[in-house]
């Protein structure tokens, strides 16, 4: 899918100036309008500050402003002549990793921050591992606060080399990873090229973000469409299945399989909001009319008959556990995949990621808040799925608390954990 829209996620450790960077990006692209600036000036003055605190532009909640930290993910919008950006601004505190996962799940590109005085921190490595696992296709490291090390070239290059090596060990190509020396506070190399870094000949952050290719890893798995809603009119015998083409292409005459049932039929009409079309591609909303009168309902997956996903009722998957109460073997939860929600048991926890060492521990007793691990799952209805690495839309799932309804985990089907554990070996748990 080509798009002039780039979805971005920012992440960093506490106090490395992330809100300031986002504020700077908005301010210097003139995406902040004067009434918002006035509000920030007034708030900064009330707090007794000499210069406007640009982080106040983005910390939207009362508690965030009071505590001076970002608690929750916020979405920001800015545009240049070349591109529109949706930016998921996520908190840096360890206990809010869930928000980083949230922002990363829909992003085409990640901007990770580090403080030039501190270099690549465990939290930087952890965020990078999350981005790699979720398949965020491009990474920029903002080597921030360079003004505090006299814009020292060696400092920047040492951090850059360490970061790029780490990203490569997680499966990134070198050309997917960029490090930019900057100071968000003073605006060096954010939107405007800095005179303080004559040794740097790369792009500013904004130049770079305008140029990167926004495509997530393409889904080359055949046609896929989870059925969202059945459109039925008894009056004229019209019945169509509404959904979004999440992978591949669909045309009238195509043979499709209805999963998990496994019945095969033919598409007779591909409807869109603008009327019937000869074909529809990934990303488009459609209403499909099928040749046979089958019991197709919300929750079913329509897929190419000749390129079917795997259908299983017991399998291993990778999860990032997002709830306070830890996950232990024997748990009963709900699993949401595509448009289907089904009951799910967790008979075992085969592995846990030691996110500091980026190593795999076998058979842990539990997964605690913000931990990533491999889980065994048994579902009441067999699940048709692709590996997350091959197709995000049919490889992602949620675990949900059957009591309160809260989302407990972000799930990735297939062997996503190997991405982060692969080159680091294993250790006993």
């Amino acid at each position, binding site marked *: 899918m080509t798009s002039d*829209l780039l979805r971005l996620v920012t992440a960093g450790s506490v106090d490395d100036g992330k809100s300031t960077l986002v504020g700077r990006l908005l301010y210097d692209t003139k995406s902040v309008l004067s009434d918002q600036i006035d*509000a920030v000036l007034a708030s900064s003055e009330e707090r007794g500050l000499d210069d406007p605190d640009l982080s106040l532009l983005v910390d939207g909640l009362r508690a965030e402003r009071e505590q001076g930290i970002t608690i929750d993910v916020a979405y920001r919008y800015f545009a240049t002549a070349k591109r529109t950006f949706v930016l998921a601004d996520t908190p840096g505190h360890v206990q809010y990793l869930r928000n980083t996962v949230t922002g990363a799940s829909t992003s085409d590109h990640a901007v990770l921050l580090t403080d030039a005085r501190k270099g690549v921190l465990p939290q930087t490595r952890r965020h990078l591992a999350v981005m790699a696992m979720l398949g965020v296709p491009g990474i920029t490291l903002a080597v921030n606060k360079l003004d505090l090390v006299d814009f020292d070239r060696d400092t920047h290059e040492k951090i850059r080399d360490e970061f790029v090596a780490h990203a490569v060990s997680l499966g990134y190509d070198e050309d997917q990873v960029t490090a930019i020396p900057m100071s968000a506070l003073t605006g060096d190399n954010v939107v405007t090229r800095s005179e303080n870094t004559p040794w740097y000949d790369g792009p500013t952050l904004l130049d770079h973000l305008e140029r990167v290719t926004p495509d997530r890893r393409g889904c080359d798995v055949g046609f896929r469409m989870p059925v969202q809603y059945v459109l039925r009119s008894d009056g004229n015998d019209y019945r169509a299945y509404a959904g979004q083409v999440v992978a591949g292409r669909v045309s009238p005459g195509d043979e499709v399989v209805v999963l998990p049932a496994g019945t095969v039929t033919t598409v007779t009409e591909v409807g869109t909001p*603008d009327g019937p079309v000869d*074909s529809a591609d990934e990303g488009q909303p459609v209403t499909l009319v099928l040749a046979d009168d089958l019991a197709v309902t919300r929750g079913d997956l329509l897929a190419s008959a000749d390129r079917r996903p795997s259908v299983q009722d017991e399998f291993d998957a990778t999860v990032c556990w997002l709830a306070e109460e830890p996950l232990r073997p024997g748990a009963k939860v709900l699993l949401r995949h595509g448009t289907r929600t089904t009951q799910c048991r967790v008979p075992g926890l085969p592995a846990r990621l030691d996110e500091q060492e980026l190593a795999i521990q076998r058979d842990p007793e539990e997964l605690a808040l913000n931990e990533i691990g491999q889980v065994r799952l048994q579902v009441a209805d067999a699940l048709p799925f692709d590996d997350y690495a091959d197709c995000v839309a049919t490889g992602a799932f949620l675990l949900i608390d059957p009591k309160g309804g809260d989302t407990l985990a972000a799930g990735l089907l297939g062997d996503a954990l190997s991405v982060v554990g692969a080159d680091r070996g294993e250790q006993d748990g």
Partner: protein
Amino acid sequence: MSAPTKERAVTGVSVLEAEAIHILREVAGEFDKPALLFSGGKDSTVLVHLAVRAFAPLPPPFTLVHVDTGHNFPEVLEFRDDIVARFGLQLHVAEVQDWIDRGEVEERPDGLRNPLQTAPLLDTITGQGFDAVIGGGRRDEERSRAKERIFSIRDDFGRWDPRRQRVELWNLYNGMHKPGEHVRVFPISNWTELDVWRYVDERGIELPPLYFAHEREVYLRDGMWLTAGPWGGPGDDEETVAKTVRYRTVGDGSCTGAVESDAATVADIIEEIKASRLTERGAGRADDKISEAAMEDRKREGYF
């Protein structure tokens, strides 16, 4: 039926439209009794058009709801009723005046009625048994709105707790809720004011005439040009003058200001917004200026 072959690149506003249609279909599939808030303003008018497109050729499975403050512009109410009739939809109107008359809501000393909408809205949701309420809120409108999820759970008092929001991952929207709770849904969360106007342009969507430059008798109050009306004004010391203006938002007449503008067409408006140094709320909404966290506080109580 004929099959026009037109491959359209999925770019810009089309990506946002596809996302919104996906969300609207999820609401229809997940909930028993969803409602769509429709005021006749540009954002909710775009929502109605998106809903009509999402379920074409059948009508969208949503009841429309309008909380009428009693201070709405007559031309907007007329437009609202036209849209309802044109698309053959059902509209439920909650009149704030009824709540005032029954003594359940008290008129404020400053005369603002926007903040009074919360009780009628929550009573309507409970009374009608709506389990999902779709609104036209956008994250670019205001700082606390930027924190809003697309599916946002409300407790059985209708309250929003920003610290207990669910994570929202990929496009897997979790609509689970306990009895008494409901879910607010914002399909155009990721749209900006400019996106809305580009969509209006692309789809040829009709809007109330207030959005376009016209001459109007207005008076100045707290830096905003207000129209004389039943909401009290002009006061004795406020002078009415004729100005060429338009509205960027068309909420309650007591707190929605007109901006001086010659933008008479959608194309003019797009150019004007690109050049504007004010947000639509900064330009035309008094109620957001009450305090640094005015919107957050109202949202916590159940406001949109």
